[in-house]
């Protein structure tokens, strides 16, 4: 697939979905939402805040990978 074919891809669902994911996770990983996890609790020994950031980050990466995969062509 050459990029020539997707001349207007900026306006296609793929671009919009990716942008949505970026904005969503920026909100998820900022205050005020972050404050909900900013306490001294620990899960399996690991502080909740660390775990939350790590898992959200992983999910973001997985979502991105899923959204940019090539469609069957």
């Amino acid at each position, binding site marked *: 697939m050459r990029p020539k074919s997707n001349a207007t891809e900026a306006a296609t669902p793929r671009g919009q979905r990716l942008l949505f994911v970026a904005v969503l996770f920026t909100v998820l990983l900022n205050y005020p939402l972050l404050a909900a996890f900013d306490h*001294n609790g620990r899960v399996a020994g*690991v502080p909740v*805040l660390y775990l939350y*950031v790590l898992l959200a980050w992983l999910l973001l990466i997985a979502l991105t990978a899923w959204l*940019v995969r090539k469609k069957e062509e």
Partner: protein
Amino acid sequence: MNKLLVIAFSFGYLALLFGVAYAAERRSAARKSLVANPYVYALSMAVYCTAWAYYGSVGRAAHQGLSFVGIYLGPGLLAPAWWLVLRKIIRVCRQQRLTSIADFISARYGKSASLGALVTGVCVLGVVPYIALQIKAIASSFVVLTGGGHPDVNSATGPALFTAGALAVFTILFGVRSVEATERHEGVVLAVALESLVKLLAFLLLGAFVTFGLFGGFADLFDQAAAEPALRQLFTFKGAGTSGAEWLTLLVLSMSAVLLLPRQFQVAVVENADENHLRKAMWLFPLYLLVINIFVLPIAFGGMLKLGGRGYDADTFVLALPLASGHSWLALLTYLGGLSAASSMIIVETIALSVMMGNHLLMPLLVRVPAARPEGQRRWFAYLGRIALTSRRLAVLLVLALAYGYYAGVGRQLPLVNTGLVSFAAVAQFLPAVLGGLYWKGGTRRGATLGILAGFAVWFFTLVVPTLVGPGRLPVSVLSDGVGGLGWLRPGALFGLDGLDYLSHGLFWSWFFNIGGYVGLSLAWPPSALELRQADVFVDVFRRRSLAEEIAGWQGRTPLPDVRALLLGFLGKKRTNQALRAFAERFPDALSMNNAQVAGSRYPESVGEEKSVDSPPPSFATADPRLLTYAEKLLAGTLGPASARLLLASVAGAEEISYDNVVGILKESQQLLEANRQLQKQRRQLQRLTDELRQAYDQLQILDMQKDEFLYTVTHELRTPLTSIRALAEILADNPELEAEERERFQHTISREAERLTRLISLILDLEKFESGQASLDRSPLALADVVHEAAEAVAQLARARGTELRVDVPASLPPLPADRDRLMQVLINLLSNAIKATVPGRPGRIAVLAWPAADALLLCVEDNGKGIALAEQHQIFDKFFQAQNQTMRKPEGSGLGLAITKKIVELHQGRIWVESAPEQGARFFIELPLAVPARAAAPFSPSFSL
């Protein structure tokens, strides 16, 4: 550890890099690239993780907890949007042959040389301390590893200097090889990718050692940390003292840095081999950042638990932990990881800066010279090409010397913890101009210049000045009382804004003035024609090939050999010929139409390249404007857009883009777009109309068929009586001796058939009249009972002949009905005679006529006990000639027009007619006639029955 051993390993490692880079270059030359794949691309992006990340993250985590993660999470959050932003930048840079952030901004805002120089200046000032930080990291890690305790001058400068020297050699050899800056540096990229792997593996190994070797896994480590109040409070942002603003600032800063840092621009844009590699890099690179950061907190807490209170700097935990536990080989490996993090950053950053410095600080000055000496132009160009390359090599040395000088001069005394972030904030000043340039056509050169200048000034004041405070430099009173004792000029609380942390405060004010200046001045002062064109080319890069790009600014009569000479000087023979051939393939008309000589100089290359190049045919050919634009782009890839424009101006005269021309074409392209939309709309309308037309046509076809059938039936019906009349007439004529009685019978038949014919014709005429809407009614109030009785009398004879009983039950008290008496009579006679005909032989027929009033109407019913009508036929019986059409019936009795006419007449009276029946059950015909004549009593036109 033994110093010599460490030095040997350091240089052994650097030698390995040379070998890898050399191998990659060899493979690249053989067209078996090791580099052109998304994995190497993503790994090379990890040059983002410098020694500052390697050592400094642990140090930051040991004191501030999780906040360091913001620097790596930011790029992760931005990565999904790369599909929109970074891909657009890559596309623009490829199309315009841009090779640095300075090229990008300069080209976007009217190929401005001064803007390019400004951007380069900001980059150098912002980034050189960052490079110094890497050198410091190498030096101090060497000292820690060799057991020097504190990095003192004598033991640290030597290795730092040697390392800087080795990296300079590497950079010059592999990074600044060709004068064409658009060329990808496969050797460097592979080396950087390898270094990314080394630092990742080394750090993971150390992290695993600390977590699982020194401690019993994550849970044990965090349990022990939780027991220490000082560490326990780092588990939350609240406890660590990280505010929401600071966290957000870290995210935003790192987002802009990963896009705009010269080294990131170099690996992500210039070294990009294929836009599709972004797909994998968009998640591989964030994954890399996540993985390399997993063990940062464990190492930091491990270091604080094991080494806390022993005078260790937290930045050195990465080395000190394995050393303290007696694993010196692990420490050596970790050291090599740090060395790779530092060296890869230094190499790539230096390449990017050297190209920027050469192209934006030196070249614009040099290319202005030749205009004065036209005769020696060609030699001067060839000379300039060499100067460009040499100046870049010198710039590499200069950058490294500056960095080393900074490190040696101030770096060792200054706390360098924040240098990286301050550096980020410096390049963040480009973000408004870059994003605005990509998505806003209104941004102008003046606006961008003012924005960057203002942002840079505020950056310096709020973020750099505080670091200059100290004994022998600025007095502390600057911070507390403001510059010159002015309270509102405090670097930490500009205009009295306090309450924000150092970074957020600096970023807020610098962006405030930056964006304000950029947008404000852009709106206040209209752009030039060239800026307008460039804006269109940049913003609409994904759309249709921009019309604006076709506006050739270069016109006139530039001799072709001059252009060739220009290219030859900078690109060399081989590359020039390649480029011209590529141009000729793309625009065959531009060269071949001009002159055959040029074509001649293109093709014999295989035979005698030297001749064609060294002695260009003596032609007076002039270069096509498109060729000039093409040449400008080629040179832009070498010298940067501003210098290329100046250089071309020296042979082709000033680039003249008429403002009206650009505005006209942009408007035209807008109009084209609009026209396109309009066309689409009209096309849809046309489609709809076509559909409607097709439907109408289909209907017409059906009607036409009906008409044909009607005509066929009518002629058929007419022929039957005619045939018998003719036959009888012939018999009479041929047989004069026929008996009188016989003759009389024949004549009687003839006259009966003629009567039938007349009746039929008058029926058809009637029907035609009704259907064409010409029939009019002569309405007058009449008593329904009278009419019914009269009609019953008219058919009484027929009924008696069939033995049918006819009963009329119509009350005389019914209200008068406004109707045409003759037509109504016709209706009744039709219905009655139909009812009589329907009687079944051998069964006494009974017919009843009933009438009763309904709401503002009269209902009339003609009922028989005849053979009835099947449900399927109940609609068709009102059609013309239905009886005749129905092949299953016996010989038709009657014309087949009676019910059709009846229906017409009833409808003409605004009434309704319908039938209820079942086979062998008799039939009931109902007629409903309104008592009041509706306002629109004019002859109704019934489209479904018009012919």
